[in-house]
């Protein structure tokens, strides 16, 4: 068979709408991951065992199990507990939560990379604990985390196709809808895949630039 360009052009606008939804899920989910990951990282460093131990367990568990099932859980189980999320909202929460367990490791490494002398100096100057974090430790830890954090934004985007399983209107969901009417799967599936691939390649290119820039800064 051969690729039907007219058919492909016909369905392209719908697929691009789907891609937009995928990008929204990426951006918002990533924002959730960035914030929640920092919360996880700080909670795991807490001196209160009743905070650090359970948070550590939950983080490890979420990181160790498949995102897809976590999405099912959010979308199908939470409504039974009285919390019904829209597909997109469930997808964003799922992606954000899952990737927060990765970003928390990045933050942790960044925090541990701050030399111990910085903590010593903060104590010698009697800075309050909160101030030590906000003005000494995090301003040093976060910049050095940026390259690794950028890479997780790419990884997160590559997991967005899984939202098809909870009916978020991303390209594959859109494609399936088209196939249900036309019974011609080749073009929609190929194009949905190519759209994802193209964005992933662009993001990966941007990621390399960010990495290079920050490496330059770190050695300057």
């Amino acid at each position, binding site marked *: *068979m051969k690729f039907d360009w007219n058919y492909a052009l016909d369905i392209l606008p719908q697929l691009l709408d789907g891609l937009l939804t995928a990008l929204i899920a990426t951006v918002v989910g990533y924002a959730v991951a960035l914030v929640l990951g920092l919360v996880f990282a700080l909670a795991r460093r807490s001196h209160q065992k009743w905070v650090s131990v359970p948070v550590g367990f939950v983080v490890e*568990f979420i990181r*160790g*199990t*498949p*995102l*897809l*099932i*976590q999405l*099912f*859980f959010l979308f*199908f*189980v939470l409504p*039974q507990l009285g919390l019904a999320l829209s597909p997109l909202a469930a997808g964003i929460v799922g992606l954000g939560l899952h990737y927060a367990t990765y970003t928390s490791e990045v933050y942790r490494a960044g925090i541990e990379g701050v030399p111990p002398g910085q903590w010593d100096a903060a104590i010698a100057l009697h800075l309050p604990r909160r101030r030590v974090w906000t003005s000494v430790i995090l301003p040093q830890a976060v910049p050095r985390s940026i390259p690794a954090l950028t890479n997780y934004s790419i990884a997160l985007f*590559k*997991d967005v*196709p*899984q939202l*098809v*399983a909870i009916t978020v209107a991303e390209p*594959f969901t859109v494609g399936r809808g088209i*196939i249900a009417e036309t019974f*011609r*799967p*080749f073009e929609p*599936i*190929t194009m*949905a*895949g190519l759209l*994802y*691939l193209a964005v*992933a*390649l662009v993001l*990966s290119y941007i990621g390399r630039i960010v990495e290079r820039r920050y490496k330059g800064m770190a050695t300057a």
Partner: protein
Amino acid sequence: MSSAQLGLLLYGAWKTILLTLGGMALALVIAFPVGLARVSHNKFVRAIGFTYVELFRGAAVLVLAFWFVYALPSLGWQLDPTFAGILALGLNMGAYSGEVVRGAIQAVPPGQIEAATALNFKPSQGMRRVVLPQAVRAMIPSFGNNVIEQLKATAVVAVVSIPELTFNGQLIWSGNGRAAAVFGGLLIGYGLMALIFMTGVKLLERRVAWT
């Protein structure tokens, strides 16, 4: 839980293990040529390695699986579903593992290569006899992580109706409607399988550690 349900779950778990190990085996077969290509002195060979890594790291497992299962039959190729799953998992993980191979080779101190040259090894001999044996040990922990990632990744092929653990879990759920029990149980099941794989990887690591 009925015995039919239990059978479905056990069969699914078996398929999941098969997908994990099959995908990882394919990944390793791909990883070495790709990783070596990435450090080649030949620009053209390097470009091939780079292209493979970019392309198949960019193409998510689910994207590949969708294409193999739903688009490829239009071209007259009907793959066995499990095989299609292993192909999608392995091609993708092969790109990541290729980067592991590259990183490990590049982490071998340059002095080792210089020493090999000083002993009049040909470059290919130096790679095979000096660099690779050291690099392979350095790869083991990363490959171990990749196995766990591969296990997690297998779940996504449920979306294209490959009957592994997650898919069979969904079947049970559509029968009994008990979402919390089924998906909670699946999460715990994957957690346990991850734990088992992790223990296996640790044991392997210890066996190959420097003595």
